[in-house]
């Protein structure tokens, strides 16, 4: 698969300013902008980095340039949500998609382990798509838990938070210049794990229509807080209540910015 991707990247590079992908050197692996003439034998697919955020930054810095990106399923979904919020321009992006393995899908509880190129102006997928993996069992177990049990669970988890902001920093959908999480109106400045988890609840609300389940936030969390359980629940709700699936359809507008007349709500009885 890597060879196929490299071949495709090599073919496309002459017409692009560069391709965002991971580069492996002696000292480590990290995002890199491959340009024509670069050594593509250094292009690798692991580990995970938020490449969509790199694309966004490059496109903003170079508003005329066309880039390519080597993206897995969740990266492509993230790019879809970013496009809707003017963080990337799909017209200036060539998507080199690749499929994750069944093992990887299981590890991430990923429902869609291959990029969906529908709606993308220019895209290509390498690899044979595998079936989606079942959801995180913790999400199902959640229904069984009493309010007291849920409270105990999250109190224990949130007490570990060291306020690194890593979950926000790594998130491709967190791009606001001014962040509510840094506003002392909402989140206490300078306090580690305050008793009421404003930080996490505010972030969960903000993720509701954006989270594409890339799970980078959980991977980056030094306190190992299972953040995606909360985000999975919110994503499920937004599907059930507003009929919206983040990252699925580049043409579907984000639901919370629409009026009822735009047809984004199943019926208000259900909501109240």
């Amino acid at each position, binding site marked *: 698969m890597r060879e196929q991707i490299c071949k495709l990247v090599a073919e496309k590079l002459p017409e692009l300013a560069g391709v965002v992908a991971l580069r492996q050197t002696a000292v480590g692996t990290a995002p890199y902008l491959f340009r024509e003439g670069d050594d593509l034998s250094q292009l690798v697919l692991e580990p995970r980095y938020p490449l969509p955020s790199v694309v966004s930054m490059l496109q903003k810095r170079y508003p005329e340039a066309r880039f390519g990106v080597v993206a897995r399923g969740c990266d492509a979904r993230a790019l879809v949500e970013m496009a809707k919020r003017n963080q990337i321009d799909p017209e200036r992006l060539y998507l080199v998609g690749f499929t994750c393995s069944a093992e990887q899908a299981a590890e991430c509880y990923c429902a869609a382990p291959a990029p969906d190129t529908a709606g993308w102006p220019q895209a290509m997928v390498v690899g044979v798509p595998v079936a989606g993996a079942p959801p995180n069992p913790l999400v199902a177990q*959640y229904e069984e838990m009493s309010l007291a049990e849920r409270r105990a669970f999250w109190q224990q988890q949130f007490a570990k938070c060291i306020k690194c902001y890593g979950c926000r920093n790594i998130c491709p959908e967190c791009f606001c210049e001014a962040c509510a999480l840094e506003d002392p109106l909402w989140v206490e400045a300078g306090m580690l794990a305050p008793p*009421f988890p404003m930080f996490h609840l505010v972030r969960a*609300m903000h993720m509701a229509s954006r989270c594409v389940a890339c799970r980078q936030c959980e991977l980056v969390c030094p306190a190992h807080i299972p953040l995606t359980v909360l985000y999975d629940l919110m994503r499920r709700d937004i599907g059930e*209540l507003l009929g919206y699936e983040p990252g699925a359809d580049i043409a579907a507008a984000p639901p919370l910015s629409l*009026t009822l007349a735009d047809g984004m709500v199943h019926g208000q009885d259900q909501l109240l």
Partner: protein
Amino acid sequence: MTDTFEPKIVAFLCNWCSYAGADNAGVARMPSPANVLPIRVMCSGRVSPEMVLRAFRSGADGVLVLGCHIGDCHYISGNHRTIKRMPLLHNLLSYVGIHPDRFRLDWVSSAEAPRFAQVTQEFVEAVRALGPLAEDGW
């Protein structure tokens, strides 16, 4: 304990409908619980989840958001936002163990003074039955 417990309620009231409704309830001398701290906002759509959460953090035992009925919004579609995001918040609270009955979204027009009295009374009773939020450990 819950017999004597007087819950603290924060109510976000839309300027054009619910606040006027509350006003009229007062003018008509309808019985109104003293537990409710009203906060006037220009539109229920202005009430962000952050504001509701902060009310809880600051010691509210229950939070009420009242706006114009759908279709009556002074800003045409302001309360369309309310109706979309408040149910999400309602669920989120329950996911972290805050009883869903501590939060209520409802519509009260300026002509519905009795309804204002009824909704607030019901809500105060519901929260009173739940006891202080602090006892839940949040």
